[in-house]
């Protein structure tokens, strides 16, 4: 099920990739969901170029910037396209490269904490997340969401549309609007490429300092090298400003999606009432501003903007309750 174009050597990559996309889209629509599932690929050879085909097939063919003024800023630029060698373009990674990077990071995180073995839960979280992501500026990413086995309270975003949250945090939620708010925050990080930019900066510095040669930069193991050991990257902090921005976006997306706007704020309130010495919030509070600061900062941004927003839904009736 791999419509590989690896053997093509035409320099006109832009045309080629368009054709490729068309072909992929056609195949996906012919084969339906089968192709979506069979498109999984082996990461080891991923960044070599095969990844581009595999990933493209997974990208939602029906993605439409419905309902929102979505601007697609994910179209690979000419700079990314003219690289003849299939190297990882750190200066300007393509959407496919972004997804490959996120997949590697998420795979490592799942190595530390696997998915909760509850298909109904995962399906529910994907439904809410997909709907919220459709209100973002990047509705066309292959968004995927997962609840992982951990009693910690935390959530993680990785480039390209990978969002994980812990079972401990899910357990604290009581309605769908709160879930939408939490997922919205992580979606905001991905839309703004917060994690990606941190990695880019670091890699470009390494290349600049001669720590990475051009040759080395073309190594297909580069992605693994770039993100360090295991899922360490998931334990890194972003700037405070990035967290505040993700809070604002999370609230905005959930509100646009038709949810009660204060879901995320509800969760921040709950986090604010968790004992700060509790081990379950150690990593969260180390990598994020405290909930009080986040609430106050979000409040400043909201001002009177929500005064006239009514009829937002909380949908606690269909909120999926954990079995254990």
């Amino acid at each position: 099920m791999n419509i590989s174009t690896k053997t093509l050597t035409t320099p006109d990559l832009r045309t080629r990739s368009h054709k490729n996309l068309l072909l992929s889209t056609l195949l996906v629509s012919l084969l339906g969901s089968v192709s979506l599932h069979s498109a999984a690929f082996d990461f080891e050879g991923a960044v070599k170029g095969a990844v581009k085909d595999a990933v493209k097939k997974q990208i939602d063919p029906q993605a439409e910037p419905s309902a929102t003024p979505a601007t697609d800023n994910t179209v690979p630029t000419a700079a990314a396209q003219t690289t003849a060698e299939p190297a990882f373009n750190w200066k300007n990674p393509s959407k496919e490269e972004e997804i490959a990077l996120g997949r590697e990071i998420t795979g490592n995180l799942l190595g530390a904490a696997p998915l909760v073995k509850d298909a109904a839960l995962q399906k529910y979280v994907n439904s809410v997340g997909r709907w919220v992501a459709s209100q973002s500026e990047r509705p066309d990413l292959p968004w995927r969401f997962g609840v992982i086995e951990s009693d910690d309270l935390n959530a993680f975003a990785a480039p390209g549309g990978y969002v994980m949250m812990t079972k401990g945090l899910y357990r604290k939620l009581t309605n769908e609007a709160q879930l939408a708010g939490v997922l919205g925050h992580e979606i905001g990080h991905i839309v703004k490429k917060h994690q990606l930019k941190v990695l880019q900066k670091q890699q470009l510095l390494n290349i600049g300092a001669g720590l990475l040669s051009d040759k080395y930069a073309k190594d297909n193991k580069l992605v693994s090298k770039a993100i360090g050991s295991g899922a360490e990257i998931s334990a890194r902090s972003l700037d405070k400003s990035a967290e505040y921005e993700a809070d604002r976006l999370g609230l905005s997306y959930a509100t646009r999606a038709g949810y009660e706007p204060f879901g995320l704020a509800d969760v921040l309130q709950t986090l604010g009432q968790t004992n700060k010495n509790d081990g379950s919030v150690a990593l969260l509070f180390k990598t994020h501003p405290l909930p009080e600061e986040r609430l106050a900062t979000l409040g400043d941004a909201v001002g009177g903007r929500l005064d006239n927003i009514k009829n937002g839904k909380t949908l606690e009736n269909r909120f999926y309750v954990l079995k254990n």
Partner: protein
Amino acid sequence: MKKLTYMLIAASLPALLMASLSIAAETGSALKNDSMRYEPYSDAKITGSFIRGESLQILKKQGAWLQVKTKKGTGWVRLLSIKRGVSTSSGNQVSGVLAAASGRAGTGQVVSTTGIRGLSVQELKAAKFNETEVKTLEGYTLSSEQGKKFANTGKLKTIAFANLKAPQGAAK
């Protein structure tokens, strides 16, 4: 005699109810300096103010507003100006007005203590890529159409709302 007992019980009921209601009023604290208003509207008359850190009682929630009571008076304030619970860290005390409003009442949240499966930095560092789990995760991927269908089932309707911007002069 029996009648009298009933009457006494009946008479004390309202008082009992009142007592439980006042227990339901939740404690909170101010996240910033702000004004209180006579009604939950931004153009309503100002009835007083409070300063950051001041503790207060949360009486009612209405939309984006909370009715609060400080030592000096009562009024309405936007809910993001208030932190629920006492400002010290004493675990979960989600109860009262807000709990009811957010559907949280009666969930009896459990604080994890022993045997936590955590995600420490060390554990994250030591993690090994798990291809099977990633594939399982990717198997759950939904299309935007499927997302829309799910939204329709819940009668969720999109609304126009521009992304919130960073407040001016804020520590970005």
